[in-house]
């Protein structure tokens, strides 16, 4: 005769201890420096932070440029991902490597490359300057360009990967039902990779927001125009560490809020699984 048990049954398989331990270490590894940073914040000065124009200016510039950069990355990156995943273009692998190289290059190198192309004496920049009077370095558009340059590969790769793993049979079926190629893209393919697009956008935006090396090299540093929050923080370290801490925490909080609000909608980077 079995006795009544009021204890809850464990029905899920138990996670092995080594995995739990390592996972805890990983969480501590990430959380500790961030918590330490929070602990260094001179909380009495936080009010000054929002009245002082420099951090506010830098934050607004960072938010503005990163959002514009993410939009540009979407407009350019989606078609590129499509071509890489869905065409038989010869040299696809070379093109993919070229287009994602900036993800692994040191950002300063990326900045130097942008100068070489679009600077006042650059390959294209010289003509832009001489014929049209357009000068790109040291302008806010230059910040956006630098951010797109280093961040777009994230979108391209996540979307391309998802496009590879979509179910072609469904697309074939749609075509036989009378859908034009554009209708198939619009109603079948893109909705299927929506999670990947979303996660790609989040990664791209995060990378653009934190971009420093390429920005400061190509766009320079001028308050309000090209001084993004990462640049301002770096310089603050030289003189006013409290200011640097405040700005770091500001950047951290903004990013944290966005990532948390996305929940797990953006982690389906590969395959677009919800």
């Amino acid at each position, binding site marked *: 005769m079995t006795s009544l048990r009021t204890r809850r049954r464990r029905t899920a398989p138990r996670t092995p201890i080594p995995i739990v331990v390592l996972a805890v270490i990983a969480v501590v590894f990430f959380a500790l420096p961030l918590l330490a940073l929070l602990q260094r914040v001179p909380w009495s000065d936080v009010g000054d932070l929002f009245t002082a124009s420099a951090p506010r200016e830098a934050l607004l510039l960072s938010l503005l440029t990163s959002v514009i950069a993410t939009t540009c990355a979407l407009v350019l990156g989606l078609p590129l991902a499509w071509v890489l995943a869905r065409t038989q273009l010869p040299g696809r692998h070379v093109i993919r490597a070229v287009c994602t190289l900036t993800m692994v290059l040191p950002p300063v190198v990326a900045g130097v490359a942008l*100068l070489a192309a679009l*600077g006042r004496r650059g390959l294209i920049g010289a003509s832009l300057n001489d014929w049209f009077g357009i000068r790109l370095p040291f302008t806010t558009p230059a910040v956006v360009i630098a951010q797109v340059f280093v961040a777009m590969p994230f979108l391209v790769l996540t979307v391309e990967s998802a496009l590879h793993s979509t179910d072609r049979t469904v697309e074939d079926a749609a075509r036989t039902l009378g859908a034009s190629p554009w209708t198939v893209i619009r109603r079948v393919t893109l909705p299927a990779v929506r999670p990947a697009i979303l996660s790609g956008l989040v990664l791209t935006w995060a990378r653009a927001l934190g971009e420093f090396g390429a920005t400061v090299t190509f766009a*320079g*540093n*001028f308050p309000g125009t090209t001084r993004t929050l990462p640049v301002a923080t770096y310089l603050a*370290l*030289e*003189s006013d560490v409290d200011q640097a801490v405040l700005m770091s925490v500001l950047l951290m909080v903004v990013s944290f809020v966005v990532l948390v609000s996305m929940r797990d909608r953006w982690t389906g980077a590969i395959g677009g699984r919800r």
Partner: protein
Amino acid sequence: MIDRQRRTPRRVCFASPWRALVAGLCAIGLLGSCSSDDTTLTVFAASSLTDALDDIIAEHVAAGGPPIRVSYAGSSTLAAQIIDGAPADVFISANPEQMDAVTTVIDGHGAPVTIAHNSLVIAVERDNPLGITGLADLERPDLLIAIAAPEVPAGDYARRALDAAGVVFTPTTFETDVRAVVTRVALGEVDAGIVYASDIAGRDTTDDDTAAVAAVPLGHPDAAGITAEYPALALDATNAAAVDFVAFLGGPIATAAMAARGFGPP
């Protein structure tokens, strides 16, 4: 706990334990992992001294001195590391303020000795195509000008020189270190910049873009008086080799080597 000053334009970086700890750990790790040779001298020096100090060390070693290892960085970074206990034997700062921060905590050998000065010049492209003759010319509206950010010593000196000369303009960009200003001018991205004399005169002639940059004096007597000052100090009075090296730094051979790199005399 050392008092922290708040938000003066050029703020000295006193010991914020967290940052110095990380920096110190790195320094300790870096230096500690290298050879355990006790005779090797460890020198912390401002980054604007890079080429010049290498020459001096070569001279010192040739004259029978011990092997020397140098760590070049921003003066405020180095000061913080030293205060936290980084094993430096000699400290050479780009301004007296950082040296003062160190001497408040550490008793070195005697008082710091100024081993060189560095005047400011205007960097322009080789052949000076825009005809810049002095600070006043920088007020021309069509010019793109780079100076170092006011948070770094070179930027602070530049700002003071401009104030002394009564010259007002809006720079195009504030670079995060002074050498980047030279690079901007060399690449043609800006028309002029305010840099140290040593940044132009002292560069190795094998650099491709050296020839692309020329120096123009500030052209204003009040501004010309603004110079960077480099105090040096042996941090451990009992370390004979360190004391000896600092003395060498103040000596004629070192001064000549500095001059060859564009520095002014002590």
